[in-house]
Every structure is written in structure tokens, then in C-alpha cells.
């Protein structure tokens, strides 16, 4: 934790304006307002000030000044994060990387791209398309989210099972440390010498350094991709089919599942022609060479039929494939239409627990009196339950948070984790105490101190202070006992 800042807002602003365009040192509330939250808008805080440096040297100087004065720094990309990881610190500086928005180089032969951190995820694939290449990880926010933020969160998407997460698709990052040094972690080669700091930095949520350049791997665009859509009359059968396809030896490019609530909401929104009576829907994308896809499509259809699919439909054109995906990709806004607000969770579970977890979630939904719709990356066991609520009803968000917390506890109980791709941020910092014990959390704090001795980078996020953990665990324990008693009494 940073000690009390040694410089006032005016003093800091003056120091920054000495080397950053004064227009990009923002101190007034009105202009700072858009920075008060990220995609997790329930958590807001106004920063002390916002800076938008334009060069790495400027980032270094900002870090040195903040480090000397013990001023917290929150690095910010596109602000699309879903765990309040970029929520400002009220005594700190928001360091926006928005000016670092250039694609520096694409090397089609080496299949790599060098990028500034503010480059949008989708822009990479758009630029690489002329060479028949693309960038693998495709989070739902890919139209807006930036590659620097993807590194900070180790972002995933719908194609992770086959093509990996951000950490699998990076070659190197250039990073400014808390003390203002520039280091390059990784290289143009695949496996350098020594401990894997690149993996450690990936997904570290802005707690270990500020990434100022990213080199990613690009993949050849598959010759063809087709989607098999299968409807099932129970989530159990849908869940079994997920395992069935993988056991058959097929690794789909994407394997997504929706429950009954999500099917109807998405179909109303996108008119994708989903089987509206189904209780579970699978979208299984197979990609590769023409021959491979033909072979695997036939096998996938057969597996789904054998496992009790009530309907099976395979895309025959790019238009049809896009339509089938449209429903899934618009599931969040679609659910947004049927409820004033929704809260998106991000737990992961072993795939074999899908049916059990969905059934338990239905029970919780009744207990908490809140509806829940499920869309998830079934291939990875990454759930995205959407809890529907109305923020204008007093107490309803608190109830939503409690429901969410119970879902995450269940994920950990069945062998999963509290976040698959959205990160811990502020939102799930308390639940870290469910997944990790105090010794493990202390080890995280010690790792953080190795990079950031003064504790200025994104303080209060990612890893909870140990003193709060014991309290949270005992509260959770009581709540758990209470739930069990209620359940035993048919509550």
C-alpha cells in the first residue's frame, strides 16, 4: 500500500505539464468524469488527475514522479474492463494509454505484429487480414478493447480452447516499471532464458508495470469455418454433449452454450432461428482446411444426435454462420432488453460440473428472487451468468452481489475459480479469500513488491489485504451455513 502522497494535486499537475502537452493533463471534474469507471460502472471513483502521455519517455517520467511522491497510478486502456480494474484511485493519477494507438509493424512472413498498447483488439485482425492472418484472442469487447488491456487481463474470448488466451499469443512486451525503468520482457524468439516473467506480467491487472508496447503472434486465417448448432431439452444433455464432442477427439474453434432464458432473449434480439423450446443450445464452430471441416462437421452432427439433440443445424454459408453467431454475440445486449440492469459473472468450472452448477444456480435464483440467464464458453468451462436486476430498486444490487458471490463460491467448491477472463479488480477482490489462503495471498503481495516496492501501481486491486480476508471468510461461512439450513427447511 502506498503511504500518504507527498505532493498536492496542483504540484503534480505542474510537474506533469512541464513535459506533457498541458491539454493532456486533466484536472477539472467535468473532463475527468468519463474516467471515473470502466465497463463495470457500478464501481466509481474520481481520480486526483488524469494524464495522457504520448511517448514512452513521458510515461517513465510520470512513473518516477509518482514513485517519488508515493502517488498511486492506475493505468487505463480502452476502459472496457468488467471488474473495475481501471477504477481510479481518489488520491492517484489515471495514466491513460489512449495516445499509444499505432500499429507499429506487421511482419506477414514471421506472422507477428508490433503494437502500441492502445491499439484495438479487432483492429489487429482487420489490418492483418490483407496477409491472410488474424489475431487469435477475441473477447466480446474486441471492437473497443485495447491490446494493452488484453495483456493486463489475460483476455480470452470464444476461441480459447483451440487458440489460447492472450498469454499464449504474446512474444514480448515493453514495460515501464514502477520506478520508471523500461524493460523488454520476452523476445522475437519463443522460449527465452530463465523464469517466465512474461507469463507473470500477463493478467497482472496493472499491478506490476505499465505496458507500452506489445508484440503478438498472428495466425493464418483458416480456409473455412462452419457452425453446428444443436438444441437439447435439458442442460444435463447439453453439458454431456460438450464433453462428448471433446472426448471424440475434436477440438472446436469455439464451443458456446446458452440456457433457455438466454436462447429466447438472444433469438428475440437477433432472429437467429434458434430452437426456442430448447433448454440448452450449443454452437460448435469447426475450422480448418476444407477437408478437415467436412470430416469434423459430419462427426460433430453424429455425436450431437447420439447424445439426444432435439435439433441440429449446420451453417452452409458465411451468412448463415454469421447469423447463428449473431445471437450469441448479442446475448448481453439482448438480455439487457429484458431487464433494466444485469450483472455479468465470470467463474470457471470443470466441464463435467456444468449441469450440476446450472441446476444449483436455478435454485439460488429462486432463493434470491432474481432471474439469471446463462451464456458461456462451454469448451473452457467459463460461465457468464447474467443476473438480472433493477438498480433503482433499493437493495437489489446488494442482493445481486450476494447472489453473484454465492455463484463464485460454488465455482470454487466444484474445483473451478472465481474469474476466467474478466479479472479480479475491485469487484472480486473479496472473493480471492475463498480461492486462496493467507499464505498464498501473502506470496502474491510479495511478488507485487518485487516489481513495485512502493506499492503505487493500482493499489487495492487484485489481491486483498490479509486483514480483511479472515473477516470475509467467516461472514461467507455463516452465510453458507444459513443457506444450507434454509435449503434443509425447503427455503
Amino acid at each position: 500500500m502506498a503511504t500518504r502522497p507527498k505532493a498536492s494535486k496542483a504540484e503534480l499537475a505542474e510537474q506533469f505539464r512541464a513535459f506533457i502537452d498541458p491539454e493532456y493533463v486533466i484536472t477539472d471534474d467535468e473532463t475527468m468524469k468519463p474516467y471515473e469507471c470502466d465497463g463495470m460502472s457500478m464501481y466509481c471513483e474520481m481520480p486526483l488527475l488524469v494524464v495522457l502521455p504520448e511517448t514512452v519517455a513521458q510515461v517513465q517520467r510520470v512513473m518516477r514522479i509518482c514513485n517519488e511522491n508515493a502517488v498511486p497510478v492506475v493505468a487505463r486502456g480502452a476502459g472496457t474492463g468488467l471488474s473495475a480494474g481501471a477504477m481510479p484511485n481518489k488520491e492517484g493519477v489515471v495514466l491513460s494509454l489512449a495516445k499509444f494507438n499505432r500499429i507499429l509493424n506487421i511482419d506477414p512472413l514471421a506472422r507477428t505484429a508490433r503494437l502500441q498498447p492502445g491499439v484495438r483488439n479487432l483492429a489487429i485482425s482487420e489490418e492483418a487480414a490483407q496477409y491472410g492472418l488474424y489475431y487469435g484472442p477475441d473477447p466480446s469487447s474486441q471492437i473497443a478493447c485495447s491490446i494493452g488491456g488484453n495483456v493486463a487481463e489475460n483476455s480470452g474470448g470464444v476461441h480459447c480452447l483451440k487458440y489460447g488466451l492472450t498469454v499464449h499469443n504474446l512474444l514480448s512486451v515493453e514495460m515501464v516499471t514502477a520506478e520508471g525503468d523500461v524493460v523488454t520482457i520476452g523476445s522475437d524468439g519463443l522460449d527465452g532464458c530463465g523464469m517466465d516473467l512474461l507469463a507473470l506480467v500477463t493478467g497482472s491487472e496493472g499491478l506490476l508495470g505499465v505496458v507500452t508496447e506489445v508484440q503478438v503472434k498472428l495466425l493464418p486465417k483458416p480456409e473455412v469455418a462452419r457452425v453446428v448448432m444443436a438444441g437439447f431439452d435439458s442442460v444435463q444433455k447439453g453439458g454431456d454433449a460438450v464433453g462428448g464432442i471433446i472426448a471424440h477427439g475434436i477440438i472446436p474453434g469455439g464451443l458456446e452454450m446458452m440456457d433457455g432464458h438466454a436462447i429466447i432473449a438472444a433469438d428475440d434480439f437477433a432472429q437467429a432461428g434458434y430452437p426456442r423450446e430448447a433448454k440448452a443450445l450449443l454452437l460448435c464452430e469447426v475450422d480448418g482446411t476444407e477437408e478437415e471441416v467436412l470430416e469434423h462437421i459430419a462427426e460433430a452432427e453424429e455425436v450431437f444426435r447420439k447424445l439426444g439433440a432435439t435439433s441440429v443445424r449446420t451453417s452452409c454459408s458465411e451468412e448463415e454462420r454469421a447469423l447463428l453467431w449473431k445471437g450469441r454475440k448479442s446475448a448481453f445486449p439482448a438480455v439487457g432488453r429484458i431487464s433494466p440492469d444485469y450483472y455479468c459473472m465470470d467463474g470457471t468450472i470443470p466441464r463435467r460440473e456444468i449441469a450440476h452448477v446450472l441446476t444449483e444456480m436455478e435454485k439460488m435464483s429462486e432463493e434470491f428472487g432474481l432471474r439469471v440467464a446463462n451464456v458461456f464458453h462451454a469448451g473452457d468451462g467459463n460461465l457468464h451468468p447474467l443476473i438480472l436486476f433493477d438498480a433503482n430498486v433499493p437493495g437489489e444490487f446488494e442482493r445481486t452481489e450476494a447472489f453473484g458471490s454465492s455463484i463464485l463460491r460454488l465455482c470454487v467448491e466444484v474445483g473451478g475459480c472465481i474469474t476466467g477472463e474478466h479479472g479480479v479488480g475491485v469487484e472480486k477482490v473479496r472473493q480471492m479469500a475463498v480461492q486462496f489462503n493467507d499464505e498464498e495471498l501473502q506470496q502474491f503481495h510479495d511478488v507485487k513488491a518485487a516489481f513495485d516496492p512502493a506499492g503505487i501501481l493500482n493499489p487495492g486491486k487484485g489481491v486483498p489485504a490479509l486483514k480483511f480476508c479472515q473477516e470475509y471468510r467467516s461472514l461467507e461461512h455463516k452465510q453458507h451455513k444459513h443457506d444450507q439450513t434454509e435449503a434443509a427447511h425447503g427455503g
Partner: protein
Amino acid sequence: MADNLQTLREQVLQARNAGHKLNIVGGGTKTFMGRTADPDATTLNVGEHTGIVDYHPVELVLTVRAGTPLSEIETTLAEEGQVLHFEPPHFGEHTTIGGTLACNLSGPGRPWAGSVRDQVLGVRLINGKGEHLRFGGQVMKNVAGYDVSRLQAGAMGTLGVMTEISMKVMPKPAATLTLVQDMAMDDVIHYMNSRAAEPKPITAACWIDGKVYLRLSGARSAVEATAQKWTGEVMENGEAFWRQIQDLQHDFFTGDDPLWRFSVGSTAANPTLDGPWLIDWAGSQRWYRGEADQKQLEALAKEAGGQVSLFRGGDREGEVMHHQPDALKGIQRRVKNSFDPDGIFNPGRLYSWL
């Protein structure tokens, strides 16, 4: 199959209390790697902490004790038609999964299938305080906390004693074949990278002795159709060739000359250095045999966008890994200190200063 955890923890605590150092050994087949082990250090034998803890083929997830031999793991996976996708090198029948991860060693398919580090989902390890900690998990995606599991890759045991590893496994490809043809070294970098940029089921690309070898694996129809389109003869005993490359058993690797490993940009021009070369990973990994000036090799590696290490032989009292810049040295020292404050584990094995 044996659970030796308590003994391992006790030995770590004893060493800590007595101010002793520990030399962590699994199967003992990689003593040639890294710098020479501290002669005063006591051996900590993880090789007896063995066994498959959990394996669900449908989940594509395997959890094993760190001392489990690769051969045992691969036999179990084969019964379910699955494999360790990263094709770990075997340096003897006792090569363990823990040592493989600690040294971050992967085989010829690495650029396509990923490395051992890429497949790791979670680890349990004993840190220098004797605490047994769990990081990551048994699920494909997990971003809670720092990625301490993958940090272990290449750390050569300097951060702790890994006791258990969870990793992703994959189905064995339905079909595999190898195409071979003559090619000059000057042409091969461009050729291999051009092939890798095509959306075809290529899974290995290697050049040695004036011949380029490309491996295709996946659905039978895709492999056969690609072999028809591409040039090169189908190799009779392709699998045996790749096995030799994977385990460093090819003739190229025999003898006592120092063996250098370059990890560089796949399209970089080959370093101007006379002597025998073997180019693997479509250009990303290049092996050189011979006496050489380490500083000169480091300059060549840097020019090629990467690093060089003295993989085997030569002077193992000096540094064997590529020189680290001061800022990264500082970070790595502090990371080491955060796991192992008394410097118990494998002192000086990775770098003289760690």
C-alpha cells in the same frame, strides 16, 4: 506412486533452519543443464514424489505429482488416445514432468502446439518458508492472482519445489506424415515461414544437413490433401526422425562439443557463424555446435531478435544463460527473494547472481 510431500516439506524446513542449501533433483537426467550445482548443497529428491493424482480425459486435464516420469504419463494418456501436446524431450527413462516444466523444454511441435508452459494450468509448490501453496487450478481459464504457475517455466527450481502440476492434454492427431526435400540453408528460413503462414495442418518444420522436413498432422483428409499440394517426398519413418529431434538423439547432437541454443525471430537471417547448425521450430530455435565466444554469440542472437544459451557442455562455471539487463536482474532477484528469502533453492543454477 508415492506421496512424499511431508518428507519434502520437512527437508525444506530443516534446510531453512540449519542454513543449508538444497539442490532439487527429479529424475536426474538434466544435471548437464544450467550452471554447475552448488557442491555444498544437499540433494532434495522429488523423483520419489510420483503418481497421477487426477485425470479426466473429457476435461483434457491431467494433474500429476511433479516427480512422475514422462513415460508413465504418456502411457496413461495413450490409453485414452491423448498426448502431451508439447512433445517433451526425454533424456532418459526417468525424465520427470517437474524437471521438464522447470527447464521449460518442449519438442518440435512447439510453435504450433505450444510449450510446456503454455499447457500448464496450475501448480502446487513449497516455497522457501516451507509453505505448501496452490496457484492456478484445473480449469482452462483462470485469471485470479498472478500466474505463478507459468512463472516456474525456465526458473530451474530457483523459486520453489514444485510438488504437483495440472496441465492441458490433447487428443492424438488422427494422422501424421512427414515431407522431406533438399534445400540450401540460405533458402530454408523463407520456405519454412511461408509454409507456416498457410492455413494447413503443419505441426513441425526442421532443417538439417541440406534437407528440410515438414510434418503434417490432424484429420486424415486434411493431411493427405496438403501432402498432395506441397512439394517433398513422403518420408518412410518420419516419426522416428521427429523422435530423434525431440530427444536430442539425432547425430547432430552427439559428441562433446559445446551445444548452443538460439531462441530467435523465426525469419531472422541465420547468424554468420561457420559450423554445424540445426534449424527447428520453423526458424525460431536454432542449434549450433562448437567452441565459440559467448559474447559474440550473444551479439548475434540479439541481432536475430532473441537470446542464446549454452545448453550442454562448455564452461558451466560461468554464465550459461543469455546476459540479463540490470533492470531485469533487479526484478528477478526480488522475485526470487519473495519466494525463497533465504536463498535455499538451487543457488547459482540459473544465473551466478541468483
